[in-house]
């Protein structure tokens, strides 16, 4: 790709692509993405390659468009009335903003974990089995296996294996969030989008979810929006800093946090605003 065409000079720095150079493929390639909510120009000329089997963190102050960008990656943003987009987002080389692209197919490949734990008011088992069931799996034995595998994958199996028939709302907030991650794993996604997954959790539950993310990145590409810069620094491989709907800086996390190139990035990560 033509790195020079990017409006962001940091982005063409060799350092930013260290991991890419080791051979990881691009899973999401965003080119000139613009998004409007009615008259509000929420995302401006976003250019952002996201690599597989890495944790990519998106940071920035409230209202900078980071959640909007994340929701565009599985087209959840379309639930908001009056949204318009231009540009392309290629997921595994297919443009997902193309009208002919089936959004249900995309969301089967791209799971999402939300800010507030949102299990269904159903049993733990039915929560995990929801995804496989809507995709047509009816066989009880297969479902049992998927449920166990997903709960083990989210490292919560031992906590809930004796209470699979209980309502998911009987669990603590942190457990509910890990149930939501397990529910997301049950559709065997390729990418997991996380929208501030720990902002509603206490520090102990946050730690558990962070450990989980650490383990998940072996098998999944994870894109996480976070308010918490320490969290981004702890768990991510690459970090993108958003401000007023633009990508200000995108680089390896170590690099971005130690030697930010842009003054605004430096101000933000040192806590001068946001």
């Amino acid at each position, binding site marked *: 790709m033509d790195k020079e065409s990017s409006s962001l000079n940091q982005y063409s720095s060799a350092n930013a692509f260290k991991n890419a150079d080791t051979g990881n493929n691009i899973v999401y390639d965003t080119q000139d993405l613009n998004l409007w909510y009615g008259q509000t120009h929420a995302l401006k000329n976003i250019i952002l390659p996201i690599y597989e089997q890495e944790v990519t963190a998106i940071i920035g102050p409230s209202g900078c468009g980071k959640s909007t960008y994340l929701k565009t990656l*599985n087209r*959840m943003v379309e*639930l908001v*009335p009056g949204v318009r987009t231009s540009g392309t987002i290629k997921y595994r080389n297919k443009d997902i903003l193309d009208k002919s692209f089936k959004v*249900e*197919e*995309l*969301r*089967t490949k791209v*799971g*999402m974990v*939300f800010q*507030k734990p*949102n*299990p*269904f*008011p159903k049993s733990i088992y039915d929560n995990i089995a*929801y*995804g496989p069931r*809507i*995709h047509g799996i009816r066989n009880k034995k297969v479902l049992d296996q998927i449920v166990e595998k997903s709960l083990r994958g989210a490292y919560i199996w031992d906590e809930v294996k004796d209470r699979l028939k209980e309502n998911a*709302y009987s669990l603590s907030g942190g457990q509910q969030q890990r149930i*939501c991650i397990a*529910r*997301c794993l049950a*559709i065997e996604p390729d990418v997991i989008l996380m929208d501030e997954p720990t902002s509603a959790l206490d520090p102990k539950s946050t730690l558990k979810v962070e450990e989980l993310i650490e383990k998940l990145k072996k098998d999944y590409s994870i894109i996480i929006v976070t308010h918490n810069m320490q969290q981004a620094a702890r768990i991510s491989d690459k970090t993108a800093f958003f401000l007023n709907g633009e990508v200000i800086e995108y680089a390896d996390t170590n690099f971005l946090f130690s030697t930010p190139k842009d003054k605004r990035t430096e101000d933000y990560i040192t806590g001068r605003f946001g």
Partner: protein
Amino acid sequence: MKYIDVEQVNKNMSPRIFKNNLAKSIFFVAAIFGLLVLITLIYRVFSDSIGWIDINFLMSKLSTDAERAGIFGAIMGTVWLMVVVAPVTIFLGVGTAIYLEEYAKKGRVRNIIQTNISNLAGVPSVVFGILGLTVFVRAMGLGNIILAGGLTMALLILPIVVVASQEAIRAVPQFLREASYGMGATKWQTIKNIVLPAAIPGISTGVILSLSRAIGETAPLVVIGIPALIIPIPDSVFDKFTIMPMQIYYWTIDSALVDEYANLAAATIVILLIILFLMNSIAIIIRNKFQKRF
């Protein structure tokens, strides 16, 4: 220098307190008035019905002889009417609510439908009777049978069911829909598996309350032309019929001729009140049981 004159304050004290007490008494009388009327009414009805409600009254056919007359025909008429009203209103009412809340885009069409539904809820029931008479009884040639009466009643309570169902559907948190869409579910899968199960308590409360309204409603059926005296028990939706409020109406009018008819009317009112009370209790129980689950 003090601005508040203690003497003046003391002089004003007792009228102020008197006014305060007077206001309290006036509002108490206002509040108690409705209650007294209701108690009087219920007392009259119950005392008139004493000795008239027994198994024969419930299980006998209609008769001109007050001693032998029963309301089994009217009860079965009400049951058959509900057989028509319930499925029609549930299908149309919940269907409309789902369309408006989940599918319709915000805009003109949705506003027009929404405004119409709100207006329909305010249309007097006798007007629905005229609609039923014109469309179902005459234009479709059904005659004054249960099917025609049921369809008319269904239209009458439709707006209530639509609005109640809309509120129930709107109360389902958006984050549950997002979770479902986020896993690749289609809109219909989300509605069927997530939205409806969560909304059903609210929807059933609305449906039960509106059915109880239909059971007590008389005017539309008067317009459609329910016979004053009908002896056979209906056994399909194509039969002629009468229902309890109609029976009350005719017995009350005819009590000028036969005194005992007043007692029969009172007894029927008691039965009708018991049925309505039970239905409303069920609605309240459902509502309380499923409140606040998220």
